């Protein structure tokens, strides 16, 4: 009983010939999602899918970075064109000694951040590496400076990578 119904289903299913594969693969599929696009400035770069370059117009010239840079590279380039330094590579400013009641707040986009403490005033000791965690108060064992993480990253699923 079951076998007969199975056979019937198989015979009514349409069969695709091998010869049609060529046609299927040669079809030009425009499956680029609508949200992909080109960004000419930082304001246009609203999502990772928008970080593409306009492409080189002149086939006889070697392209410039603006024309073909993509991804994080493009984001950095667009920011630099507007004078914004995208990645914060400056050392942290320490203008006071943190106390347990009034710790130095360190901004972070991640729930964990490592900092190096050279004491107060700056450079009075060798670097001590401290692991700051969200919600915890950390203290440098040599100079006594207190630090606390100021989480400014995305809420919710923070550890998405």
């Amino acid at each position, binding site marked *: 009983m079951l076998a007969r119904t199975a056979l019937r289903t198989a015979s009514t299913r349409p069969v695709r010939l091998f010869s049609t594969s060529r046609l299927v693969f040669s079809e030009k599929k425009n499956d680029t999602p609508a949200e992909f696009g080109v960004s000419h400035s*930082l304001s246009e*770069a609203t*999502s*990772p899918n928008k*970080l593409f370059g306009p492409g*080189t117009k002149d086939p*006889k*010239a*070697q*392209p*410039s*970075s603006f*024309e*073909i*840079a*993509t*991804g*994080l*590279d*493009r*984001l*950095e380039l667009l*920011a630099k064109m507007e004078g*914004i330094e*995208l*990645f*914060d*590579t400056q050392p942290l400013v320490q203008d006071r000694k943190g106390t347990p009641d009034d710790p130095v707040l360190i*901004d972070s*986009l*991640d729930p964990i951040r490592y900092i190096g403490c050279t004491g107060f005033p700056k450079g009075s000791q060798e670097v001590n590496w401290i692991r700051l965690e969200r919600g915890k108060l950390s203290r440098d064992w040599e100079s006594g400076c207190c630090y606390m993480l100021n989480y*400014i*990253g*995305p809420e919710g699923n923070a550890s998405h990578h």
Partner: protein
Amino acid sequence: MMQKNMKTNLYQSNPFHLVKPSPWPMYLVFGLFGFLLNLTMMMHNITDNYMMLLINVITLIYIGLLWSRDIMGEATYLGEHTSKVSEGLNMGFLLFLMTELMWFFGMFWAYFYSALTPSVEIGEIWPPMSIMPMQATDLPLFNTLMLLMSGATMTYSHHALMARNRFNSMFGLFLTMLLGFLFIICQYFEYYYCSYTLADSVYGSVFFMLTGLHGMHVMTGTLLLCLNFYRLYNYQLTSEKHTGFNTSILLWHFLDVAWLFVYIVCYYWGV
């Protein structure tokens, strides 16, 4: 500041490239191991299977190309090479060139150790008894001129790239590749018609170590130039950012200078 944070929030807050797991280092290691085993066995007369060596070398080149393909994809098509990453790559390559410099330093030390006070076994003279060194003003001088010219064409290509001049840049790079290839051909010619071999006393050893390994580096350098030509042709190198091209140029100029030292020491002074 907030706007910047919101932007970097969406992507990655650090400018560095955290590489995804890749099989190429492991494959390269296995390939190198096989290559070294093969070479060692050949040098100790355990095997004379040139086909195995050829397969090994082809595999190594293939793995290198596949790895380079991945890096090219990450750089050009994924945009993961920010300026910090480029700086890191440049710095890393300079460190590698420092290790190569150390290697040449060691080799020159070995040469001068053997040549300044020659031992009694070779007759206390340099070149040793019965070694007839080739004439410096013959083919080696031509080789020197070719390398110097290739340095000039390389710089020409680089400046043409920075000026967005596509045809001139490709032409300069092609000339450099051609000169590098001719250098290798001439060296092969010299080695073929040389009256002494690697096994002929310490002179043969130090001479062929210096010139031979320099030649191997020129071969690798020419391969890198071919890779750069492919990238240039496919519009992957831009007028502002071309880290791979920069590193290849560094290697080429380094080899040029090293050859000048090798030429003066081995061909002029050592006669």
